[in-house]
């Protein structure tokens, strides 16, 4: 069964450093998303991406965040200058159409020291 994959599974970085979280959505999916989950809290929407552009972004997704689909398979989330409060699980999700369910990846645990 096809699945969303994410790398790395765990990323440790120093405050102020740039990180890139990578996702490979399911191959025939057209809609892509990033969510985050701070430990013990609910999953929060960050950004949606369709047709090579951002569809919607949350208040969390400020100028320090960017997304890119550099080729036909990868979908990345970049945080330019990480802060301690960026420590969280970051989930990528994709779906085939606006009427289908979102499939989530296993997540990347980001730890900012």
């Amino acid at each position, binding site marked *: 069964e096809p699945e969303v994959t994410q790398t790395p599974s765990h990323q440790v970085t120093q405050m102020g450093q740039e990180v890139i979280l990578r996702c490979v959505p399911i191959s025939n999916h057209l809609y892509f998303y990033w969510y985050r989950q701070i430990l013990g809290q609910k999953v929060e929407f960050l950004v949606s991406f369709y047709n090579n552009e951002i569809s919607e972004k949350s208040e969390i997704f400020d100028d320090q965040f960017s997304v890119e689909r550099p080729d036909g398979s990868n979908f990345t989330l970049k945080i330019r200058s990480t802060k301690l409060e960026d420590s969280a699980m970051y989930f990528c999700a994709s779906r085939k159409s606006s009427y289908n369910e979102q499939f*989530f990846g*296993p997540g990347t645990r980001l730890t900012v020291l």
Partner: protein
Amino acid sequence: GESVGLHLPTLSVQEGDNSIINCAYSNSASDYFIWYKQESGKGPQFIIDIRSNMDKRQGQRVTVLLNKTVKHLSLQIAATQPGDSAVYFCAAGAYNQGGKLIFGQGTELSVKP
């Protein structure tokens, strides 16, 4: 703003009993609702969804009930098994919002053998 909340943070049931997990939402414009299961260290896994024009939907051992009048939905798990132990999230979405999901806090279900 929009919110999706759950009534109980934890639920403990005996194996074989039925489980009921509740959720309340605030946005009456939500078009669909989804229940996700999240096991430790994994991403949310789709269980079942329901569109706003329905009030009940059944899957394998699971039933979702939607009461739009009081903006409440519930997930019923029949004959709960130890493998059902996880955190359960409800999420709400609207077709005009590009697939953004608003998640609730999560209920941790523990199944005692």
